[in-house]
């Protein structure tokens, strides 16, 4: 049962990420998302310009495979890099393009991996080319091995690879991880600037050079905004701590009252908060779920206590100024108005975005049929059970509530949910919890024939 407990435990604070599927089940294809169109277009432009730049000798002997592939891989890597950096810029203007920051972060993670793999492939191609020509491989992989070695490039490559590997380090404290992770962006931008100014394909063909310069400007601007300008120009709202509710030192609710203007948000979204009075953490921004309704005066965020920052929260004094950036995310039923029947499944602290949705159901007069599952290890861990019980009967929508305790009921399964919902089968599923839980449940629902567009997920991770 240990593995089961691990699988279904929340991973801590409400750090979140949403996954939305592009392909529809039942053999149909949905329209591609804007971000997919963006990436395909950018890669297409890069490839066409590269082809045009090499038009005179594209079929020349010796150009394929290694010289051509080494150039294409680095250009594709550069192109994707600009999307990777743009995706996490946290600018509200980017929301229509990426569909919310949570979706953008997910894209950042997957495209970021592709960027690094293409960079790695570029070096592999260079090594293959070197072997083909009988030149020294050391000049490509060992810095300062000879005067011809491109030592700076090699060192930057290793640095990027090291930082990329650290990006998947889950044990590192979030702030330290974020601090280190930021350097990948500047290294990638610097590497691209270096490549663009070196004699070669990019410099030789003006349209391609112009395109790469545009990509560099986009990437550099996105990185600069994200690292240096977001604090000042981001969507900042000033609040103060009005009430603090601690649930057995495991979870804490911060109820925040607006000092100036009130932030408007959709239920299910999230915010970044900063608490300047916390000496050791005064510059840190942490993402947390909103668990209040947009019609309420106070903004509530619900946080599981897992680290240094969250460990400080229960001792905050009332009236403490709190800076709120947001709202972000697209894990909200209002973006899926056509789905009238919803199965909501929250595991552990993953229940919190549903609390906001549920509160909004008290007033929204937007009738839906909802089946709400609150998955926890046991009754003690279900800290929001009584809150749900006390309010769900008054909701406008018809809500069936199932507190699912894994020590009592065993492992929740999509089949068990489907049996409860039957004979209805045209429902959408919203899942929030740890990555393992969400992944497993989404897979089960897909296996039951639920179209992927009807499976809306949010993982409790933001790295």
């Amino acid at each position: 049962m240990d593995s089961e407990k691990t699988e279904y435990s929340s991973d801590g604070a409400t750090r979140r990420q949403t996954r939305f599927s592009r392909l529809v089940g039942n053999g149909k294809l949905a329209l591609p998302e804007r971000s997919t169109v963006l990436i395909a277009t950018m890669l297409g432009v890069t490839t066409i310009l590269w082809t045009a730049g090499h038009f005179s000798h594209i079929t020349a002997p010796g150009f394929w495979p290694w010289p051509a592939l080494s150039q294409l891989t680095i250009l594709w890597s550069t192109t994707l890099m600009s999307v990777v950096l743009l995706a996490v810029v946290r600018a509200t203007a980017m929301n229509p393009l990426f569909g919310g920051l949570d979706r953008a972060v997910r894209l950042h993670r997957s495209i970021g991996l592709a960027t690094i793999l293409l960079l790695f492939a570029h070096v592999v191609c260079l090594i293959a080319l070197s072997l083909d020509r009988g030149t020294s491989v050391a000049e490509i992989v060992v810095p300062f091995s000879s005067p011809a070695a491109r030592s700076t490039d090699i060192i930057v490559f290793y640095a990027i690879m090291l930082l990329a590997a650290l990006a998947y380090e889950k044990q590192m404290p979030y702030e330290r991880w974020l601090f280190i992770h930021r350097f990948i962006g500047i290294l990638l931008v610097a590497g691209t600037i270096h490549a663009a100014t070196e004699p070669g394909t990019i410099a030789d063909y003006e349209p391609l050079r112009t395109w790469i310069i545009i990509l560099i400007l986009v990437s550099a601007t996105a990185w600069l905004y994200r690292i240096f300008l977001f604090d000042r120009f981001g969507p900042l709202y000033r609040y103060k701590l009005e009430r603090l509710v601690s649930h057995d030192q495991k979870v804490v609710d911060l109820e925040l009252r607006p000092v100036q203007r009130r932030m408007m948000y959709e239920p299910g979204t999230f915010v970044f908060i900063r608490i300047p009075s916390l000496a050791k953490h005064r510059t840190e921004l942490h993402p947390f779920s909103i668990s209040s309704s947009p019609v309420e005066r106070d903004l509530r965020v619900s946080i599981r206590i897992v680290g240094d920052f969250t460990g400080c929260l229960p001792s905050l004094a009332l009236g403490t100024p709190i800076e709120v950036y947001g709202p972000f995310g697209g894990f909200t039923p209002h973006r899926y108005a056509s789905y009238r029947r919803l199965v909501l499944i929250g595991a552990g602290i993953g229940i919190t975005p549903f609390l906001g949705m549920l509160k909004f159901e008290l007033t929204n007069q937007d009738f839906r049929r909802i089946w709400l599952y609150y998955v926890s290890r046991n009754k003690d861990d279900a800290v929001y059970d009584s809150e749900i019980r006390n309010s769900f009967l008054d909701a406008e929508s018809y809500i069936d509530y199932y507190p699912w305790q894994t020590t009592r009921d065993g492992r929740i399964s999509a089949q068990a949910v489907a049996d409860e919902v039957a004979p209805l089968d045209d429902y959408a599923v919203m899942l929030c919890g740890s990555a393992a839980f969400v992944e497993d449940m989404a897979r089960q629902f897909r296996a039951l024939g639920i179209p992927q567009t009807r499976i809306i997920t949010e993982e409790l991770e933001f790295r």
Partner: protein
Amino acid sequence: MEILETQQGSHTHLTLIGRLDTNTSKPVEEKLLSLIEENKHPMILDCQQLAYISSAGLRVLLMAAKKLKPINGKLVLVSLQPHIKEIFEIAGFLPMFQIFDSNDEAVRSL
């Protein structure tokens, strides 16, 4: 919410006027329970003037239907507005109730 009650032959005719939501469901619940207690069924629930129904209203109707079932009682609904019928459909409640377009049809079904 206004509830008009008339005894028509062997059945009770109830007309609901207004909104059936959290704030108004209690008197409707009490009325239905008292009619069931007094064996004043079958019942026809005229929803022509029912402007809105929330989950609280649905729960009241569901509760009444469940209480009637073991005593072979009957609760039929008549003249639902399209948006009310849509709520029943979304909730998956259509199979749980007999719903008719006219009072005559409802009476014939009893």
